[in-house]
Structures are given as structure tokens and as C-alpha cells.
């Protein structure tokens, strides 16, 4: 695996091997010295075109735990604001001879496009409303640690599916692992044709009780302004996960940050059924596993291939 561009590109076996690797790193995280020398001398560049707190910091921490060097490059305050194109930025960063490029972009397909311009390993940290594969991997990791294998489990993803890269990646990841996925939200926020991803579509929470897992999505205030839903009040009354809707046998997930009082009530967000904190914790070890899978064995620290146009050897899977 040279790049991680999407969950779509992964098969069940690859996802499970990533989970196994993450589990090994989780053991390291329990030790007093949490750092391993695996990627010493490697350079990981974080290129973030969108604001991000947890994804970026967990990628940074993951790289550092693996002893890699990290260069953070944010679009604001950089040459990007002066009008530099993505292609030129990639060429510029390539001159530092990075080993991996972690990219977050507001545009669909940006990570895949970048991978056609560079031989450096590219990791998609979110491309517009398309995919957020490491989020789905950390969600799978968190969930399987709590409830075991996902085969036959019923998972409801509730909220703004239309604008959610998390939803798309999770539908694909959960179904690849044998779960039955239902997406549910206002008809205005469920994209036509989403069932082609292998999920069922519902517009109300009537049958939510049959779910083993409820995955609530973030409801952004700007969606109200765009007339997708008439009001926060109505969204809350139809779709908020609260104590009345969360059954005791269910677990609750959310990609964060939570809008308390909108998609989740505070009591369920803080309940022991909520895996939200565990998801954040899993972010570091899963991203360590991803960095390890795309980089370990790809080439030695002294390899020094230039970024532009040089395809490095495919990484050996651990």
C-alpha cells in the first residue's frame, strides 16, 4: 500500500491488517515510553487546506511517536493565499524530499490528484465531501474494540449524509466488514443514489431501536441558512439522539466536534454508551498504523527520491 486515498480502494483484508497493526501500536501507547524508532529519519508533511484540530494533531502525534520528522503546512498565511496552485505547492514541498504527504483539502479527489503528480506516499486526511478514510479506520478500530466483529451488526448513520465525507467512508468501511448500514436524515440531506454504496436509506428514526450502533453526524449551522432544514428546532425534534432515543443496548459514536443540543443531547454525549473520547484516542494509533503501512519498507531513510514524478517502490505490508 503506497497511498491511502480512500476506503473504496481497500478490501476487508487490508482494513483488518491495518487494525491489527493499530492494535500493536496501542500496546506501545500503554507503555511509559510511547515512542518507537520505526520511521526515524523519515519526513511526513501535513498539508492542510482546511481548519482541523484533531485530525492534524493526531497525524502529527502519530508521526512523532514513530520518530518521523514532521512539517506542518497550513494554507492560511502561506503561498496558497498568494494564489499558488495546488500543483505548484506540491512541487515546492517535494523539494524537501518528504516520504509521506498527508493532505486535507476542501476539494473532492484532491489527494488522488496529488498522488498522480508525486511519487511520495499520499494519505488522504479528508477530500471535500468525498472521503475521510483515516476517520473511518479509527471508527472501525474503536467499534470493534467495544463490540467485537461487525459482521451482521446494524449500524445507523444519522444526520447530514450529503455533506459528510465521514459518512461516505464509514458506509464503505462498515459494509466491507460485514455490517448492515442504514443512513438516516432529512431527505434534503441524503444524496440521491447513496444506496448504491450498499446502505439502506431511512428518513425517520422509527426503527432506530434495531440498531446496535448509532453514528451521529455533525449538523452544521450553515445548512439551516441554505434551506436544507427549516430550523434547528425541527432538526432536533426529528433527528437528535437523546436519552429517549438511545437504548441501553446501543453504543453511540460521533466524529466530533459535537454540537451539543443539536445532533446529540449532552446526557447521551457524556454517557458511558458514547465512544466519542475513545474515537479520539484511537486516532493516534490508527494513524500510526497508516503511516507505518505506507512507509515501512518503502525505502530507507537515505533513499532520498525526489517528489516530482518518481514512483517509489510499493510498501510491503507488515
Amino acid at each position: 500500500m503506497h497511498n491511502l486515498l480512500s476506503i473504496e480502494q481497500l478490501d476487508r483484508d487490508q482494513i483488518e491488517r491495518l487494525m491489527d497493526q493499530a492494535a500493536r501500536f496501542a500496546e506501545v501507547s500503554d507503555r511509559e515510553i510511547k515512542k518507537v524508532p520505526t520511521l526515524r529519519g523519515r519526513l511526513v508533511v501535513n498539508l492542510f487546506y482546511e481548519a482541523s484540530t484533531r485530525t492534524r494533531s493526531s497525524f502529527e502525534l502519530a508521526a512523532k511517536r514513530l520518530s518521523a520528522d514532521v512539517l506542518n503546512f497550513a494554507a492560511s498565511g502561506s503561498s496558497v493565499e498568494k494564489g499558488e496552485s495546488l500543483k505548484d505547492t506540491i512541487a515546492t514541498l517535494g523539494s524537501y524530499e518528504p516520504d509521506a504527504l498527508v493532505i486535507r483539502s476542501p476539494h473532492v479527489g484532491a489527494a488522488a490528484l496529488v498522488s498522480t503528480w508525486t511519487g511520495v506516499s499520499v494519505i488522504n486526511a479528508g477530500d471535500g465531501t468525498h472521503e475521510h478514510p483515516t476517520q473511518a479506520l479509527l471508527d472501525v478500530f474503536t467499534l470493534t474494540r467495544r463490540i467485537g466483529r461487525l459482521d451482521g451488526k446494524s449500524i445507523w448513520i444519522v444526520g447530514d449524509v450529503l455533506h459528510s465525507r465521514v459518512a461516505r467512508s464509514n458506509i464503505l468501511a462498515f459494509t466491507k466488514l460485514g455490517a448492515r448500514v442504514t443512513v438516516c436524515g432529512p431527505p434534503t440531506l441524503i444524496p440521491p443514489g447513496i444506496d448504491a454504496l450498499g446502505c439502506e436509506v431511512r428518513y425517520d428514526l422509527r426503527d432506530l431501536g434495531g440498531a446496535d450502533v448509532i453514528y451521529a453526524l455533525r449538523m452544521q449551522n450553515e445548512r439551516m441558512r441554505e434551506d436544507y432544514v427549516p430550523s434547528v428546532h425541527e432538526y432536533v425534534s426529528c433527528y437528535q439522539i437523546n436519552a429517549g432515543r438511545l437504548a441501553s443496548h446501543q453504543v453511540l459514536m460521533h466524529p466530533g466536534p459535537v454540537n451539543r443540543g443539536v445532533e446529540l443531547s449532552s446526557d447521551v454525549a457524556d454517557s458511558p454508551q458514547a465512544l466519542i473520547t475513545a474515537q479520539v484516542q484511537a486516532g493516534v494509533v490508527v494513524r500510526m498504523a497508516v503511516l507505518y503501512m505506507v512507509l515501512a519498507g518503502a525505502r530507507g531513510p537515505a533513499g532520498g527520491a525526489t517528489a516530482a514524478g518518481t514512483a517509489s517502490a510499493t510498501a510491503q505490508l507488515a
Partner: protein
Amino acid sequence: MRRLFSAPTPPATILIRGARLLDPRSGVDREGDLLVRAGVIAEIGETGSLEAPADAESVDGSGRHVFAGFVDPHVHLRVPGQEHKEDLHTGTRAAAAGGYCAVVGMPNTDPVVDSTAILGSLRDAALREARVPVGFMAAISPGLAGHGLTEMVELREAGAIGFTDDGRPVVSAGLLRRALQYQRLCGGVLALHEEDPSLSGAGAMHEGAVSALLGIAGIPSVSESTMVARDAALAGHEGGRVHMQHLSAIESVRAVEAAKAAGVAVTAEASPHHLTLIDEDVRGLDTRLKMNPPLRTEVDRTALIEAIRTGVIDCIATDHAPHAREDKDVPFEQAAMGTTGLETAFAALYTHLVLPGLLDLATLVERLAAGALVVDLPVPAISVGEPANLCLVDLAAEWQVGEAGYESRSENCCFAGRQLRGRVLMTLAAGGVAYRERAFAIGVA
């Protein structure tokens, strides 16, 4: 009133020997010799029956086809203002290389063709630079802003073929109604880019399973078809004449069919890319496949082909839309909309429609020339006494559409990398030789 303009070219005297002559509109489908003398089709006869005049070039047509030249009622020549993408010379060279003997440029330039001054400068430039005759559409609304009408009468008197806000819809039904009323005074077709922006929004591809998978905002088919139905109703109400540009959806085809059945003076076009490619092809997010209207589904494509076959869609138009590399070398959602098309139209359609048996060759070449009718231009004909507007094509020639090396100044061709059959060897436009394929040798008799 002259409405086509091109640089002077010496009238050709050429004998094409033993080619298959195909012009269904004139009832011509035979093998034979065709003599062009001083730019005019002088004689047609049995193979070997015609003698080349002393000053004539002689062309071996055996195993090759001669078609009436193609006419494209919808191209973007980018002049004035975006000459780094295309100009009248490169655009008409691309047209000639595709077998076209006339093209009609759209007014969504910078500045917009909304005054006689700009139209006049275009006309003058065409008289210097255009390799094949070019006509120009003028805008319906000044600046394509959708408010008020351009000086349609004066623009027509200055040579405007018709009117369009192409690139944008005429959002206001009231404004289109006024334009239809004014059409009674000035004539000229109203060509309409049909799209309801409140439905298409920030969409970048067809709304369906593929856009759902990719997470790209979709452009639903109804954003086109509702406007087709609305504007056909307006045209019917005012007794006006409209031309529906680049139909992409089955619902739009049905709307045009219904309007025609109701007697509305409506014509329609489809583009080579909508007839050959679908949204599934966009999965790889190749920005050359981003266009407006977007590539839709196989159901839509099949309906478009059937409509071309039956004549519900009157003609094929490329919507040739050149863009600079930096406009396409970006993420899909940021990329400019449009594909070049003039140089690949025939080969793409022959390869993907005629060879698999979806459309017969005669219908294809008829629809490639029929664009002339919808914009009131004479239709090229293989007929004695007609000016030589024709192309010589080798149907057996196989070629790969390159990443570069076009006659057009731009490289954003949606067929790049594809293996196509059918190569234009020579084009005669308005009596002169407008194009010869580089490798194609012409002997002098």
C-alpha cells in the same frame, strides 16, 4: 445579408477519383469521381470517367469517403479576451481538421458580444484569420447578465446569426418572452442553454449514484428539462423559434419531442461527448470530462442517440470549449467546465456509435451538417453547381487522440487517450482547401 466570414483562400481545382460520395440530404450515395473547379463542384461521374484539368490536383479517393462538410452551430472561439485558449485562426483550423466547413461562435467572451462594435471587430478579424467561414451569435442580454435585451435589430444588421446567453441560462421567463417577441422584428434563432441555477447550484457533475459515491454536488437532470419545457411553452405561446443547446437528459428529449408534436418551432442539438460518454466515466475525476451540462447516465445517452436517429434532436454540435492547462490541472470541483471537440467529433461518433451499430453512417453525417439549418445557413451539399464544402475521410484509419498536438490551442479533449477510427484527410470550405492531413499526399495530375 452576409453572416459567415473567413479569410480569402484560393478557389480549389481538385479531382477526387473513385471515392464513396455520401450526402443523404441530396440523395447522393454512390462511388465516383468528383471534380471541383474554381471552388465549385463542377462534375460528378462514374469512377474513371472524369479527366483532371491541367491545373488540377488529383486525389485518390478509393476506399475513402466524401461527405458534405460539417457545420457546427455551437463553438467557443474565445475571442475577444481569452486568446490564450483559442483564437479565430486556431479555432477554425481545428474545425477544418474535423471536417467542418462552417462554425458558429458563441458570445460569452470577454467582453461579451453584445454590441455592434464588438461584433464588427470579430467580423473583421474573421475576414483576416478564419480558415473556414465563421458566424457569430450575439448575446440576448447585455453582458449575459440576464437583465434587458441587447440591440437585437442592429446586431442582426451587423451580421449576427442569432442570439444566445450560452454558458448561462436565461433565468427570467419574462426576459425570454420579450426576446421572443422582439424576434418577430429582427429574426434570428434564440439558442438556449437550459439550466435552472436554483436546481443545479454548485453542482459539478450529474446527480446520481456516481456523484453520491464521490461526494460531488450533483446537477440533476430536471435542472435542464424543466427549463426546456418552460421555454418551449414560451416559444409556442409567442410563435417564436428557439434552439435547445447541448441536450443531456432523457427528460429534456421528451420535452423537445412533446413541443415538436405540439407544433412549436423548436430545434435541438446534442454533443459528441453526451452521445458517447456517461457519468461512470467521470469516476476517475479526469477534469477533461467536466462539462456543463454534465455527462449523464447510460439511459440518457441511449435516449440522445435514439433522438438523433429519429430527428427529435436535429443536429450534432460540439460545444467546442477550449480551456488553458491551468484551468484543468486542478481538483475536479475547481476545474473549468468544457471540452474541445471539433477535431474528434466525427471519429468519436463513428467509433462509438456507427461501428457498434447504434447509428448508421448516413444519419451521422447528415446530423453533423444539419447544424446549418438550425441557424439558417445553407446546408453543404454534394451537388453540381454548389460551392465545395466537403470533407474526405478515411474510415479505416485508426488513430489515438493525443494528450497534445491539436490544431486547437487547448488540449482539454475528453477523448484524449482513446483509440478512434476515422480520420479526416482533407476539408474544402467555401471552395478552398481548408485542411490537409499532414501525412496525406496529394498528387498533381
